[in-house]
């Protein structure tokens, strides 16, 4: 087909497409195939799966953004909509940007009311072609997806060799399926080549992905647990955390089967509920195992009582909280950062917990390992707060690295010989420079025996109801928590010359906020950037906030939870912090951030003028 004569400037490796499907029809594999092919073409790409809490029949979307400049946040301007769900045609077609394209199944005519003058419609008779070429109804439905992928390969200029290679790998052992996929792909491809002019945006091979991998955060988290040497895992299924344990189970099958005995060097328990899951983690860690659970907000709510027990009795526990939209059941398949306060202060009474906030799968891996070290060093629960966007979407990240000299930080644990050398063992005294006292493990020596209790205890571990004895212990716990600020990951800070204010964020907002700051900079509004990576806050967090006249705190919850935490836990003045909260449940996009910052800045200058 002819490319000559196209006058519009062609955008290379810089566009976004959205695929609207019905869930349960097998579109995920077609969409994943496209994303993976673009990744293999060496082009920066991100894919966001916006799926419903349902097994079959509801709308589901997949967004692919290609950005030669490496911007991976969700885009809101769609150059091409693949409209495969008649239920949502109206809304989907509305979302295409002026000058954009809609690819749809033209087996059935499109309702004329859906037409837009400023959008080009690309009709492909997908159902008709698939019905003609495939016999079984299930296959016809599945292959429709592969056929539209074929059409997209043609119009976007995805490298067909790469796609064929991917199919070879995927269906190495399923020859018949390989054949069907190939056939469907060609149906769509040939049709598009024959009927459509080139689009004003397309792909071209780059070399941005060497040394990179495509991985979801939950797999990376599970890998971290494997590498940290976790042996006991207890969980109760809940979206979006389930794939952490699925991945851990798969990894254990692969790497934890003892070559000599055939035994599994791990124990993964599907608990009866989250109360049990955290109880099992605490029991295992009390006995000296590295143990963890993975869950989401509702699970954390249930775990609250025992988290307080672990905090007060000083037992390590690692909790992977893959956040979703609350309150209550909320929107289980939508993303949010809604558990920040719940985790920081989980349980009744005075409690504070170490929380880590990874921004992407690489940090999920790194921080998962760190969670165990911190939990054992500080003998306390540690939360890793990932979210659905990080956990369940595939991200392009640098290859994970492992340092073979790593050894677990087991914290202060007295062995038999050390116990032999001391006069008498007391559980909560003496403390070290981090305000941590040594613990002992069951099964080692009667000299180290003590009675673990969640009831009032003195520094010797004895039961108490005396104010001074009680306070002595809980005051030390507070100092211990504060000491952890020196051990947790420092914030990521990036300064720009001429910056007049700070923009602070955490976790999965990272990519959108960075992009927003580039956009603002290009408009002559430079700002400094800080991404908080842990609670308790390292000193540098407060310094950054105080360094700026004011700071925007960008987060994904309604109540400005990170801002609240900063106000509660640092000395920063309230009027220095302004909120930008985006919490509808879809991953953050830069546009939301720039718009909100710009409008708040506008209000600020207006107010200054009127003063």
């Amino acid at each position, binding site marked *: 087909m002819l490319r000559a004569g196209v006058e519009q400037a062609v955008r290379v490796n810089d566009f976004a497409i959205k695929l609207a499907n019905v869930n349960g029809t097998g579109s995920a594999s077609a969409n994943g195939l496209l994303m993976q092919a673009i*990744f293999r073409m060496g082009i920066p790409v991100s894919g966001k799966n916006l799926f419903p809490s349902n097994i079959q029949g509801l709308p589901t979307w997949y967004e692919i953004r290609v950005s030669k400049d490496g911007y991976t946040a969700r885009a809101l301007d769609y150059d091409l909509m693949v409209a495969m769900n008649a239920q949502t045609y109206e809304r989907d077609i509305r979302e295409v940007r002026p000058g954009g394209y809609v690819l749809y199944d033209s087996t059935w005519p499109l309702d004329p009311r859906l037409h837009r003058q400023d959008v080009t419609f690309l009709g492909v008779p997908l159902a008709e072609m698939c019905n003609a070429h495939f016999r079984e109804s299930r296959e016809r439905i599945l292959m429709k997806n592969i056929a539209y992928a074929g059409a997209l390969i043609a119009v976007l200029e995805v490298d067909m060799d790469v796609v064929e290679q991917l199919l070879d790998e995927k269906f190495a052992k399923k020859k018949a399926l390989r054949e069907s996929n190939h056939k469907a792909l060609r149906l769509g491809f040939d049709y598009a080549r024959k009927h459509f002019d080139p689009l004003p945006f397309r792909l071209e091979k780059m070399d941005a992905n060497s040394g990179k*991998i*495509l*991985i979801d955060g939950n797999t990376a988290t599970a*890998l971290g647990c*494997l*590498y*940290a*040497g976790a*042996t006991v895992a*207890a969980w109760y299924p809940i979206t979006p955390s389930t794939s952490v344990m699925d991945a851990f189970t798969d990894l254990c099958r692969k790497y*934890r089967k*003892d070559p000599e005995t055939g*035994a*599994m*060097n*791990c*124990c*993964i*328990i599907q*608990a*009866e509920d989250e*109360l*049990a*899951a955290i*109880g*099992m*983690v*605490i*029991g*295992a*860690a*009390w*006995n*000296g*195992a590295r*143990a963890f659970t993975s869950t989401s907000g509702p699970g954390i709510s249930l775990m609250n*009582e*025992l988290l307080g*027990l672990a905090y007060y009795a000083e037992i390590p526990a690692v909790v992977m909280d893959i956040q979703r939209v609350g309150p209550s059941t909320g929107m289980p398949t939508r993303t949010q950062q809604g558990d920040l306060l719940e985790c920081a202060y989980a349980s009744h009474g005075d409690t504070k917990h170490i929380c880590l906030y990874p921004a992407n799968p690489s940090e999920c891996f790194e921080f998962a390992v760190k969670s165990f070290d911190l939990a054992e060093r500080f003998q306390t629960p540690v939360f890793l707060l990932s979210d659905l966007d990080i956990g369940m979407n595939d991200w392009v990240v640098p290859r*994970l690295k*492992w340092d*073979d000299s790593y*050894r*677990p930080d087991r914290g202060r644990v007295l062995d038999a010989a050390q116990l032999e050398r001391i006069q008498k063992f007391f559980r909560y005294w003496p403390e070290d420079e981090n305000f941590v006292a040594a613990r*002992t493990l*069951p*099964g*080692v020596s*009667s000299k*180290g*025996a*003590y*009675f*673990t*209790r*969640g009831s009032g205890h003195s520094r010797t571990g004895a*039961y*108490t*109801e005396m104010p001074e004895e009680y306070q002595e212990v809980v005051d030390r716990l507070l100092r211990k928590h504060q000491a952890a600020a020196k051990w947790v990951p420092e914030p990521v800070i990036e300064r720009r010359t001429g910056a007049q204010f700070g923009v602070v964020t955490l976790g999965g907002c990272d990519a959108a906020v960075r992009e927003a700051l580039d956009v603002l900079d290009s408009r002559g509004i430079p700002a400094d950037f800080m991404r908080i990576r842990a609670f308790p806050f390292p000193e540098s967090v407060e310094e950054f906030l105080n360094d700026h006249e004011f700071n925007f705190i960008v987060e994904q919850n309604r109540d400005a939870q990170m801002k609240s935490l900063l106000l509660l836990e640092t000395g920063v003045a309230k009027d220095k912090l302004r909120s930008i909260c985006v919490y509808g449940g879809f991953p953050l996009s830069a546009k939301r951030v720039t718009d909100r910052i710009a409008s708040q800045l506008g209000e600020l200058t207006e107010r200054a003028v009127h003063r």
Partner: protein
Amino acid sequence: MPSIAKPTAIHPSLHRNELGLTIRDYEGSMSTLCAGCGHDSITAAIIRACWEISLAPHMLAKMSGIGCSSKTPTYFVSGAHGFNSAHGRMAAIATGASAANRELTYIGVSGDGDSLSIGLGHLCHAIRRNLKMLYIIENNGVYGLTKGQFSASADVGSKSKKGEPNRMAPIDPVALALSLGATFVARSFSGDKDQLVPILKAALSHRGFALVDVISPCVTFNDHAGSTKSYLYTRNNMLKATETDFVPPASEILATIGRNGAVSVTMHDGSVVRFKGVPPDYDPTDRKKVLDYLSEHHGKGEVVTGLLYIDESVPDMHELNNTPAQALTKIPFEKLCPGSAALDTLQEEFR
């Protein structure tokens, strides 16, 4: 629960077990329960059972929830680690503890409130997993520690201290456990040490989950006329279905079987439980017969006691999970972490 240290003088005539320890070595700190509380008698039976089987104190883990009953692990084997956890959660915590270190012996002490209301789910699932532990319910029909509310084990018509009758059907832990496929189910009475000690010893040798429901009168809130968990009622209505002898693996197994020639069961560790005084048609390995027997006598208002059901053929949680023979905590890190080369290879798949 302030615990008071006991004088440590040892009576020279005290016997020593295989480890050279006297029974005093299995004691804990002084009980602070009400004088006459049934729970204290159970503590004494636990102490004796542990001493008699020569359990190394540091190899015992004492687990409990919250309640008067759950306080008692402080009162036995002070040389063992104990974990007085949260109300109803002991079974879950014991499950994790066992997962990490299967080499320890686990004794869980719970109450009827702890096990049959707030912790009922965990109890059921520990039974399903056949978690290897001795799980004792110190059953007094009330919430002792919160001052006398009815528990879920209170019988219909049983009266509270204030005279109000309970109208809701009880949860019978023995019937419940049997229906869930429990592999060791016993009931006893805190006032009958002769019966209880051998049951505890057998339970400690059991392959999986051993549930021992012990009627344990609460003298303060539930020991009056009209209560079906009082000393008087239990003594008058107790029916010993079985009496057991426990023969540890090392001892020579005597050829003579119980007086009535009933049943003898070989435990997983080679020890033998012999049933004496068993009614002729009672077979503690036949679940259906046991259930029939229990319901027949329950109808007559009798409290059937003894080691009621046993099955040594069912794998425990570790066997089901194919975990190593030694504690997971003993597996060296080098074996757990696949290392950088493996990570590189694995990442070839992430493309």
